[in-house]
């Protein structure tokens, strides 16, 4: 077994006296799409936010160990900025910045002080191609990004994250609210991306998890009910709750 890129051991999270994650242990390996599914409020987004060190709240209590790319991200010494360049996150609702498509794409590079035109263009193109958006916007990169359609905006956000060439891409419900065609495009893009990257895909669409993920986890009310190979979880789940959820009996 290779060393996992993300290794959670007994991670518990509490904010405002309310338990959000309870004793989560799981491994995510290089070049896989790891799906996280579960009903609303299960702690999926919170888990992603722990991984890239962006969880914010009052009275936050964290226990356990969480190693990301070999670094202990729960320790106080972790420097979050370099971490976030290697572990990029895309939100459930697309947030495009009020600037051109190009400037959106290179934002992450500009804040690193990169000014070289050809490097910026290269990164922008790489991101767009990764998100399968290149053909649609290649000749209007200087147009305002907010004019793009919802599906294009979501792919632009993925492209913006990919322009940084991160090791890990955290996607929080990237296709919620999108039409089937846009969803299909994003799923195709993900399958292509996993050749060189590792993807954590949060989705409350179980069919999507079944379609694209290699391994997955089922979160329920802050607990990790089950994790394993997607093919196995969707055919012979070990837990009855997983079976019920996949069959659509709750959630």
């Amino acid at each position, binding site marked *: 077994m290779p060393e996992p890129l993300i290794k959670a051991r007994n991670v518990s999270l509490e904010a405002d006296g309310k338990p959000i994650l309870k004793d989560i242990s799981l491994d995510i390996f290089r070049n896989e799409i790891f799906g996280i599914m579960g009903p609303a409020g299960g702690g999926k987004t919170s888990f992603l936010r722990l991984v*890239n060190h*962006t969880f914010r709240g009052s009275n936050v209590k964290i226990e356990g160990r969480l190693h990301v790319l070999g670094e202990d991200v729960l320790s106080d010494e972790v420097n979050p*900025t*370099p971490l*976030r*360049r290697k572990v*990029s*996150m*895309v*939100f459930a*609702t697309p*947030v495009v*910045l*009020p600037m051109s498509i190009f400037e959106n794409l290179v*934002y*992450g590079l*500009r*804040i*690193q002080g990169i000014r070289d035109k050809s490097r910026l263009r290269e990164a922008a193109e790489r991101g767009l191609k990764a998100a399968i958006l290149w053909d649609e916007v290649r000749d209007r990169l200087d147009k305002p990004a907010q004019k793009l359609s919802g599906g294009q905006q979501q792919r632009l956000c993925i492209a*913006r*994250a990919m322009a*940084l060439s991160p090791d890990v891409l955290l996607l929080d419900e990237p296709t919620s609210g999108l039409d089937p065609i846009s969803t299909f495009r994003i799923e195709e893009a993900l399958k292509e991306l996993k050749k060189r990257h590792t993807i954590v895909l949060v989705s409350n669409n179980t069919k999507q998890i079944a379609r694209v993920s290699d391994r997955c986890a089922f979160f329920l009310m802050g607990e990790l009910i089950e994790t394993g190979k997607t093919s196995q979880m969707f055919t012979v789940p070990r837990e009855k709750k997983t079976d019920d959820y996949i069959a659509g009996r709750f959630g």
Partner: protein
Amino acid sequence: MTPKRAEHIALGLMVSGAFLALAILLFIIAVIMIKGLPHVTLRFLLDNPMDMGRAGGIFSTIVSTIYLLVVSLIIAIPLGVGTAIYLTEYTVEGKVTKIIRFGTECLAGVPSIILGLFGFILFVVKMGFSWCVLSGGISLAIMILPVIIRTSEEAIKAVPQSYRDVNEVLGGSKWQGVIRLVLPNAAPGILTGIILSVGRGIGETAVVIFTLGTSLRTPFSIFDSGRSMAVHFYILAQEGISMKNAYATAAVLVFSILIINIFSYYMMHRFVKGRT
């Protein structure tokens, strides 16, 4: 009296109140323009006052006014915008922010004559600057600071939180988010506040008399005294030197304030439109 009738009466009062306010404004502007505008010539704008303002123009007072405003803005903008950034981006709402906010509210409530006296005692006398552009600029900056803080804060808060989140997940520091996303998007709102405070500063007399002084010479260094247009008008009218020139000065003053207000109104509209 039926509720319906009461509503009619109340509505009538409110409408006539609104029209009365408008009528008073138009009346004031009309009187000043009719009495003043005929005397406003290019020579009036470009000549220095002579014989205490009985003759000549108001050139040196225009220079003093602009000089004073520029100095006070140079002080108040970084301080005010900086305070607003600190309050909104770098602190969690709590005791400290409440105290700072309460302090600025109080500052806004201090009568300008008191501020003038304070500026006089501290800058003119104690620190030995005498009456000059610097003393006036600092004192006026203190006066407009609350306006700039308040409007900047509102403008900064109106920038969507999601922009800051994007900056964060792409590896940006808080400061980079402020510089690259928050300030550019808050700029129209901040600018509106600055223009508003220019409007207030241009008409201010109490603070200015005490700190800038009343010299009719054109100030060059920030340690030179001067006389702003508003103060000039006040002295001309109050000492009965020349009602003709007083009205002409007032016309220029009102005209500038009008332009500034229209401009800030326009900016505000663009700001609101840009947000949606």
